[in-house]
């Protein structure tokens, strides 16, 4: 099928044969990320556009549909050198888009897909610029007022432009409210950044990323959301297979294991200390010396065969690093840029006579400035879709309950993360709502804050879940929560399937005040 007369280079897009879950052949559009030549035979590393990177793979030329080949658009695409590709917009754009999408999303249901028209983007950029002007200090007071007035004017004008442009693309329904919000936002010029940040609610300060100077990532947290400086190397899986205990795992993403190991077909890990070894022989030798039969930390929870171990990223660097390397194979946004010192690792294990086998883990900042109670969270692939992920999440909230705080996972969430969290949040909140009893004949009622306190789920997450479940309704001048039959049935059905639960009585955990114990 492949036409060898045309040279297929990095950046080209073309349909690539792929077998889907139903074993049907599909020809999704894919982008060539890399080409390699093994004994005269070319292999192409393809990324399926609008599919997760974990599905990226090396394909033989016969799976490429050369006839529909699109060459990289020079003007639109950022050069590959910077690690920026078509499917990944540059950061300033993305930032703008983020704040913009707020309004877009409120207007459009998630299922409706992405609609990000370019004019809007432009308008937003302009308004951004004016905001900056307004914020700059001006010598005299009258001048300052003038300036802000001017800014106000522009902002309003931009906003109206914004509305107009959206009118062209969006359905009419929510236009007014959207427009209002948008204008409102720009009507408060003095603190544009903060306002925007509050609205965005997501994570890092987006203004910084526009300077274009390659700098080290922020030192808090364990996830990167700004991937503008990504190397092409990190966009490609570098490890073929990892053997861990009785499992062979196919990594989903890049992980910075020692480079010499990446060329091996299999990297062998010690199941208990997670040390990486180049061969089975080495693993055998290692096992004669390694006495560990459980993660090297304190067991703080045990019920049945499930245990949780707490590992201090500063005290037990070797294990923490090995765990991070392994986790990176399955977490796209995880960064291993910095050391593990400010993190605690909670490793969930399942016991059998061979020892405590790692099932999954989550990491947590010892001190989080942003109410994060989870940094990275992972159920190892062999254990996925069996309720362990929810167990991990539940455990993380149990810890927060002991700490007396509400918490939220660090952003960005992955697709699986989002699904898992939403599922957990939904079940947890519904559990509460269903259990509400009416007092003295009145309607049972509850505040969002109460839900948050009971569950340790951060307020914003409670609201988003209620929204997502479509529970919040405006009825006769007030907000009410409504439980549909579908929801109730679905919940009861799901809860029946949820066997694995955390028993708070089995948790032996005393939170440490890390601020008093010194840095990390």
């Amino acid at each position, binding site marked *: 099928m492949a036409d060898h007369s045309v040279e297929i280079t990095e950046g080209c897009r073309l349909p690539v044969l792929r077998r889907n879950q139903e074993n049907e052949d599909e020809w999704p559009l894919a982008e060539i990320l890399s080409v390699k030549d093994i004994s005269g035979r070319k292999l192409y590393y393809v990324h399926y556009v609008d599919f997760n990177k974990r599905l990226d793979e090396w394909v033989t030329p016969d799976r490429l549909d050369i006839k529909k080949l699109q060459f990289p658009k020079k003007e639109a695409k950022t050069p590959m050198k910077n690690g920026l590709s078509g499917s990944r917009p540059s950061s300033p754009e993305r930032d703008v888009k983020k704040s913009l999408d707020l309004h877009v999303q409120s207007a459009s249901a998630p299922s409706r*897909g992405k609609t990000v028209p370019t004019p809007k983007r432009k308008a937003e950029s302009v308004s951004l610029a004016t905001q900056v002007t307004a914020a700059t200090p001006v010598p005299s007071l009258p001048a300052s007022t003038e300036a802000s007035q001017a800014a106000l004017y522009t902002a309003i004008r931009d906003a109206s432009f914004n509305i107009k442009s959206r009118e062209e693309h969006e359905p009419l329904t929510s236009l007014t409210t959207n427009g209002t919000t948008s204008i409102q936002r720009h009507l408060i010029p003095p603190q544009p950044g903060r306002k925007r940040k509050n609205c965005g*609610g997501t994570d890092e300060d987006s203004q910084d990323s526009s300077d274009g100077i390659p700098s080290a990532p922020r030192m808090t947290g364990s996830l990167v959301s700004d991937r503008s400086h990504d190397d092409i190397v990190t966009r490609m899986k570098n490890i073929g297979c990892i053997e861990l205990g009785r499992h062979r795992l196919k990594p989903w993403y890049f992980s910075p*294991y020692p480079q010499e190991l990446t060329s091996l077909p299999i990297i062998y890990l010690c199941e208990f200390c997670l040390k990486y070894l180049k061969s089975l022989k080495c693993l055998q030798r290692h096992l004669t010396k390694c006495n560990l039969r459980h993660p090297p930390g304190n067991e703080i929870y045990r019920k049945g065969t499930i245990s949780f171990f707490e590992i201090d990223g500063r005290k037990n660097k070797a294990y923490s690093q090995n765990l991070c390397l392994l986790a990176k194979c399955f977490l796209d946004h995880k960064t291993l840029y910095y050391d593990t010192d400010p993190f605690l690792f909670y490793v969930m294990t399942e016991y059998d006579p061979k020892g405590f086998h790692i099932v999954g883990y989550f990491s947590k900042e010892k001190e989080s400035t942003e109410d994060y109670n989870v940094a990275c969270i992972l159920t190892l692939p062999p254990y996925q879709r069996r309720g362990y992920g929810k167990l991990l999440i539940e455990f993380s909230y149990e810890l927060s309950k002991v700490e007396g705080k509400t918490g939220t996972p660090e952003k960005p969430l992955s697709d699986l993360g989002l699904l898992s969290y939403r599922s957990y949040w939904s079940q947890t909140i519904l559990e509460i709502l269903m259990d509400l009893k009416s007092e003295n004949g009145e309607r049972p009622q*509850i505040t969002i804050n109460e839900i948050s306190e009971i569950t340790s789920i951060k307020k914003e997450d409670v609201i988003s879940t209620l*929204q997502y479940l479509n529970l919040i309704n405006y009825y006769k001048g007030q907000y009410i929560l409504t439980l549909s039959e579908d929801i109730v049935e679905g919940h009861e059905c799901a809860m029946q399937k949820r066997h694995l639960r955390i028993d708070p009585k089995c948790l032996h955990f005393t939170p440490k005040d890390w601020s008093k114990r010194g840095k990390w």
Partner: protein
Amino acid sequence: MSKLSFRARALDASKPLPVFRCEDLPDLHEYASINRAVPQMPTGMEKEEESEHHLQRAISAQQVYGEKRDNMVIPVPEAESNIAYYESLYPGDFKMPKQLIHIQPFSLDTEQPDYDLDSEDEAFVNKLKKKMDVGALQFEEMIDRLEKGSGQQMLLSKATCIALKPVTLQEAKLLLKEDDELIKEVFEYWSKKRKTCQSGSLIPVVKQEKRDGSSTNDPYVAFRRRTEKMQTRKNRKNDEASYEKMLKLRRDLSRAVTILEMIKRREKSKRELLHLTLEIVEKRNNMSDFGGEVMAEVLAQRALEKPVIPLIPITNSTQYRHTEHDRDYKIKMDKPEVVRQKRKYEKKPKPLPLAGSVHSGPSVFNTKDLNQYDFPSSDDEPFSQMFSGSSEVEEENDPDGVFGFRRRTGCQYHSARSGPVSGWPWSDPAEGGVADVRYRYSLTTLTVPRRCLGLARRRVGRGGRVLLDRAHSEWDTVYHGLDPDSPAFPSLSPTQQQPSTDTSHTSTDTSAPSATPPDLTQILLNIKACRWRHFKPRTAPPDDPDNPEHWSTRRPRRGFLIRPIRTLQTQRGPASIRPPPPPPTPAFTAEQYQQHQEQLVLMQKQQLEQVQQHQQTGSSAVTNNPQSLVSKTIDAASAQFAASALVTHEQLLALKSKDEGVGVNGVVSASGVYKGLHHTSSAVSSILPSVGSTSTSCPSPTIATTTNNGTSSANHHVGPAGPAPGQALMGGAVRVSVPSPAGTLSVRQLQRQLTVPASALKLAANANRPLPKVTTGSTTLDMGPRENHDQEKPPLNSLTENTVAMEVT
């Protein structure tokens, strides 16, 4: 705009929301249009990922809650879970502990090598096993060390990262503790393997950041150190550390204050002592008590008053200290800044030191004294140690705290000599020594290996060891050629005199007229006149085997410890180093010694009688007659004494107490010499040199050096040669300060029989001892040992005569 233009109120998180079932609200759909007024919360995902097909499908599937179909699951790369060898790889014998697992800190630091053997290594080790003993673990440890050793160098040369400098074989040998052959094999294997390995390290490690910042964007570099502190204000850990440091500083400073206060007190005591001494001297001067009789009487009286030895100055000083101390203590207690509650000061009854313990100057502590220094050190309570009365002396003398010198029971300690160490009996008078005859360099032959060493001298070292110092001379080759066994000496060709380096010889020999011209005949003469000696083992004295007087038959030698000394003080050329011969040690029994002692006593008695006749003419007569004295040698004898005294200290004491009845000065002084030998080499050097120096009629300088424990005024009263030796001996005796009462008695006895000059008396006063009674002429004292050595002379002479006879061929 739309007809639904009103704005819904913002959702209030603190406002109660009634919960309805949908079926209860049939009209809800009418309000549906405004439901979306609540702004949608962000999902928290990256936008472009949020739009991914699988996720969107899954979300839309979930939107209809609970309805999940398989195709709505986000596909992930598969995982395999049936590793065939898993069961055999991991042992299945781990029992779940009953308690929650708790990791002990540092329990994870096992000393296991990080390197793991691979198949290639295994083959190599198996091959190696045929040749030598090596295990897999051992091999891993070796490789591990090599890797880590070179890893460090890698770090050093990080800037030029490519130029990895592996360890050399030399370094490998330092790193590995195996035998050389194994190291070589493993090292070669390792360096070869390392060269072929592209990463540079055989133990795979995650790439580390480079300091120059070039690795900022290297995707394989991970776990960089966080150089910047996230928050600087919350640095409590730092506070804690600095608080500890401050505490420590305060403790140290308060210690320093205490030490200084104690020094102050000590100096005050010293000053008071000086004043008292001065007062005594003045009073005595007024009374014209130049002979010290009054003083002696007074002291004797006091001694009678207090049956135990009176210790006036000492007790005074301690009382003074206590009061002073109490005062200080009170002051301290009043000071507000001393927060710490000190332990109550217990005034321990201080055991009164016996006569031997002298306040300043050399002192020996007996067991009773020693016990008081056996207190535990308690670092946590610095004050308890500082303020417990018993430790005062210790604290003053030794402020080193934990690292200080601690006394042990059962050991006797002498205080350190002040000033530079000089005045050895073997060193040149110019260097403060006395250049004793006994320490001149003489020809010496060893038993094993049986050969002539050349010039050497013997002296008593620590613990009664006898050291041989060897000197270089131009005639060494000739000396070495001397056959010790043959009766005839090879040609002892034109000799120089006793080697020029031997200052002691020259100084003693100045009065010998025949010594100066260095020709063969003179040498021969010297030898014949016993001025030149050759010591050799007794085994083959062919000429005189039956001579009962032969020194070596009488006193078999104990093992000599021979130490080649490269450079001696008085020596210009380096001495050749020879392997030390094994000591020829016939057992030296106590009986033999006793016998010998008795013989000696007899001889000394005889000699003394003779000498006392001489003495009538005055001490100058003795010094005028050097010829008879100079050639006397006591080398071997004194060495023997030193050695034997160690063994038979008890006998010696017994002997001495016997001798007391005799009342002969010489005998007692001789035993005093033994005591001196026994106790300290410094005592030897103070007594023996006095003998030698008087014989050479230059007593004053030596005395100056030997009485180093006396006050500086001591020498002012030094009279003509006569009293000087007495003083010297006095110094020695004072220093001896015997631990047992018997010893004290004998020494006191001894001192009563001496003429004690004023200065010596002052010494005694300082020492707080009963004043020795003044007896006969002072020179008797030094005559004793000298006569003793006269007795030694004949056998030695006979020996040297033998050697001389063989000299010319």
